């Protein structure tokens, strides 16, 4: 699916009326971006509480979905878990605060917190502007034997959102 998306992208570029040199550059950049983007999409798993996790080699990165940040509104304060905290799946692992409300974050999987996004202390709104990348919340060593079957992939999460958004 990712490969065909890239192909489609490049095809459009090469048939458009742009000077040759910029065509090449544009197509290269687009391919690069499209590739890393679709890689993220492929790896990201979601909870029904709208957190996401990307697990690479037993290391997990956790954040909230774009839908969640839209619902929460402008985040003004982010509480992240303390380093070394051992979390069970669905433990409260942090809190996001807007002017209007405080919303707890639940850990998608169990594990030990190894890093928190220190940028969020001074720029909490990164969670709004870049929920899937720069606005990540914390990283953890995923507990051995973790089962991610309960989590949704991008496609399943999209379908799930359809059921709750009318």
């Amino acid at each position, binding site marked *: 699916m990712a490969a065909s998306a890239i192909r489609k992208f490049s095809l459009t570029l090469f048939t458009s009326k742009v000077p040759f040199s910029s065509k090449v550059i544009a197509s290269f950049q687009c391919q690069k971006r499209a590739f890393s983007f679709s890689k993220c999409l492929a790896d990201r798993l979601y909870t*029904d509480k709208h*957190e996401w996790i990307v697990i690479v080699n037993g290391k997990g990165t956790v954040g909230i979905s774009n839908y969640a940040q839209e619902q929460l*509104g*402008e985040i*003004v304060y982010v*509480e992240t878990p303390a380093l070394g905290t051992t979390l069970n799946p669905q433990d409260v692992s942090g809190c996001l605060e807007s002017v*209007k*409300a405080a*919303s707890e*974050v639940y850990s998608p999987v169990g594990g030990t917190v190894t890093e928190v996004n220190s940028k969020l202390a001074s720029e909490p709104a990164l969670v709004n502007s870049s929920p899937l990348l720069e606005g990540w919340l914390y990283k953890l060593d995923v507990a051995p034997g973790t089962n991610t079957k309960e989590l949704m992939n991008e496609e399943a999460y999209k379908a799930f959102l359809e059921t709750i958004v009318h």
Partner: protein
Amino acid sequence: MMVGIIGKYRPFCFHHLYKTIKSNRFSSKAGELKRTCLYDFHVAEGAKIVPFAGWEMPVQYKSGIIKEHLHVRKEVGIFDVSHMLQTRVDGKDRKKFMESLVVLDVEDLKPNQGSLTVFTNEKGGIIDDLIVSNTSEGYLYVVSNAGCADKDMAHMKAKEAEFQKNGLDVKLTTIETALLAVQGPSMKKVLQPGLDFDLNSLPFMTTISAKVFGAEGCRVTRCGYTGEDGVEISIPSNCAVDVLSSLMSSPKAPVQLIGLGARDSLRLEAGLCLYGNDIDETTTPVEANLTWLVSKGRRAKADFPGAEIILQQIKSKPTKRRVGFTSTGIPVRGHAKIYSQDGKELIGEVTSGCPSPSLNINVSMGYVKTAYAKNGTKVKIEVRQKMIDADVTKLPFVPSNYFIPS
């Protein structure tokens, strides 16, 4: 079904008001949420709609709560507050009638003068807060909270029946018009061109019957819930969209629609109470730091509901008092427990709080034991098992900007 991030998302302070109220104001079937006559306008403007006090109301528009909030402080914002209960009190015994329910010296109001007041119960508790204006057209114009509309109406109706039974002349009518709050320092610039009178002749807490952008039968009252200079305009429903459109397209200043979210943070910065959070039937005006509402004449007569308890508290200080708090770090919100500085003594509870968009610190208010109510007192507030340092701080947090000619 939905829990976690989204399930938790709800305007905390408003939650208790979500119950549907029974009323036939505007169009709605029994049990359904009601819509104001400006509902479609809000949706077209990108409003996020939430249930509030039995109504479907905009909580914010596209720009979001912080931008809306700051826009009201800097320029001018318009709030649809048509969900509030507007009541007209006619009859020659109307002032006596209103005085039997509130702590205000209604007889003492000059023509077209209004005041904030409270309905009190026999224990001195607050049934609702409201604004009573003594119109020069010979009736009282009363505006009270949407969330209390049912009980306010029942309360007033019961007293009306009692008065009428005793041969007194009083008649209540619900006013079914739209109500727009136009708030902010640029209010005068955008509203004056549409008026048939000079806004300089309308000081804070006065009212006038007027034509507004061509709409006859409007009432303009210089009041609001933001701490800024502003008015509330009662407009016949069929003219509301036109008047709102005229204001929105003003060339004099940028006008934005403002939702309930910013309405809450603005009133908090202004130190104003939200009924159901900061005041209710278990708090008296004295405890709520609203002793100034109890008119001198009424104190002398001691003839309002709950007078005995309220007057006793004025004389010998209440056991608890509403105060403001400022803090940094984790935002403090309603229901947080307040402790003495050493963390040993539980001294009270926060009733509402939020990060302040104007001040970039956290502001909150709540009740503490009177010994801790002095400004500058250091306290601890517990949020998610953490003890936050907070200072008792003078209200309002942001200086008010009312139009009070000297």
